[in-house]
């Protein structure tokens, strides 16, 4: 239960969520190398070295090992970089999800997917894990702040299915207020950050903060929706918002068109086409987030 707030960094919020979950759940284990992975080092010190399974750096079967451990009753957590994901067991994650969905087997694997802080402008960016995870329908959350990271990581560890958590390096250094103690955010529910009537802006991960700051700074009349979870998508939250505003911008932290933006636009077009006053728009955040969004919103809202 939350008892107060404290100001910590994004990565510290993840570490705190893991510490709390490892304290609560004796079956939670971490697959990593303490020498190379701060989470492994800290969890080994806090929860015991037997709760950290050492895997060699570059081990290609790390996700298969995590899925196997999950099938044996553990709740494994592991960490990969986004570029490693396809070669290191995305297919095993998909299979694990199928085992849960069709055979009812618990496959609670949490994968922290690091997205490096590069310029994410060009389409087809290999560092964008949603490129693989969304078409594969692997449950994935994209936290936008330290508080979101803490709540979503805790929920991921408790989920009966594999859940990927995108850890965007652009957010890693930023700090913010985080509830102290246990903090849980339900996976699959979007979060309305700001209410407005002129335009719906949908974002996730690193794109939410810049959109929120811009809207606050310019006092824009926009409805800002943080998707939180990109698989599954909270369609109803977006559709309800568009029904109020009649216009939609998907503000992507990586590239456009993206699988997430495509899914959001498709859902809105299918369910609320008659409410739209203008074609939905996808904008990539790139490395100059404020400028890109400011220009686009200025054109749309006429300021």
């Amino acid at each position, binding site marked *: 239960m939350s008892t107060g707030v404290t100001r910590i960094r994004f990565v510290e919020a993840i570490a705190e969520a893991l510490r709390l979950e490892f304290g609560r759940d004796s079956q939670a*284990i971490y697959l990593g190398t303490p020498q190379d992975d701060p989470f492994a080092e800290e969890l080994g010190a806090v929860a015991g070295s*037997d709760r950290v*399974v050492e895997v060699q750096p570059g*081990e*290609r*079967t790390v996700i*298969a*090992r*995590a*899925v*196997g*451990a999950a*099938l*044996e009753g*553990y709740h494994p957590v592991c960490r990969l970089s986004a570029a490693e994901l396809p*070669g290191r*067991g995305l*297919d*095993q994650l998909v*299979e*694990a999800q*199928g*085992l849960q969905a*069709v*055979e009812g*087997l618990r496959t609670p694997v949490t994968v922290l997917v690091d997205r490096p802080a590069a310029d994410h402008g060009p389409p087809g960016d290999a560092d964008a894990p949603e490129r693989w995870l969304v078409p594969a329908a692997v449950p994935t959350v994209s936290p936008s702040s330290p508080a979101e990271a803490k709540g979503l990581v805790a929920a991921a560890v408790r989920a009966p299915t594999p859940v990927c958590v995108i850890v965007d390096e652009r957010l890693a250094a930023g700090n913010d207020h985080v509830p102290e103690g246990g903090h849980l955010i339900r996976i699959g529910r979007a979060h309305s950050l700001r209410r407005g009537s002129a335009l719906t802006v949908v974002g996730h991960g690193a794109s939410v903060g810049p959109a929120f700051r811009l809207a606050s700074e310019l006092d824009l009349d926009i409805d800002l929706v943080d998707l939180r979870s990109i698989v599954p998508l909270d369609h109803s939250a977006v559709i309800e918002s568009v029904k109020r505003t009649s216009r939609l911008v998907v503000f992507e932290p990586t590239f456009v068109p993206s699988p997430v933006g495509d899914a959001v636009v498709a859902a809105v077009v299918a369910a609320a086409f008659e409410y739209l006053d203008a074609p939905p728009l996808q904008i990539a955040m790139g490395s100059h987030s404020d400028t890109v969004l400011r220009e686009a919103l200025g054109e749309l809202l006429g300021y």
Partner: protein
Amino acid sequence: MNPVAATHLHGSHRLRPSAAGVEARLALLGLMMKARLRAGVAGGEAVAVGTGAALEPDDRLCAPRRFVGAHLAADLYERYPRRVGAASSAPDLVTIAAGMALAPGERDGAVATIASEDALGTDAWTTAMRLVRELAAPLVLVVDRVVPHGRPLTQAPPPGSLPLIGEAVDGAHLEDVLDAVAAACERTRSGGGPAVVLCVRRGAPSEAPFAARLDPIERYARSLLGAGAPRERIEAALR
């Protein structure tokens, strides 16, 4: 002489000497009935039946349904509460089976998986083999090899693809598969590390030898009776 039984894989070990017990042979008979392994049928189900009968309740079976056969799947998977893959259509579950075998903590059984030889040689496969070998994981890998007509049954597996101790058997010979898998499981349960059983068979059942075209269930039931298995248990297995 069985043309492939003498083909040893990595190392010079032969997994047996101990043969599976009467309980496993009665299980084999029951699974033959469930799989409808009637006259002339010697396909992948034969490998699955031999493997399934060798497992004990604490063992895990981690194999896609396609290696088990539609007739057999329900019974074989129901027989083992700790099964994975009953509804899976994946090409193989070898890496997940290796992950199960490598899970931390005390273990009271083996993890068995069935895969096609086609799956050998990928990066993930090679890494999984290296890990289970280095960490002495209790994994029994049953490889189903289908040899085209005109090729010798004694053909060796691709170099380095099966770096585990094991043996090759006639994949159409149910008792050979049963004995080899039972011995492999026994080895892994007692901490001997992973093992492989390469089941070699011809693709088309019509090419099975004359003896195999006789009803194998009836013949097997008679041989069990002759070996002293209780009649009522045999009749129960045949129901």
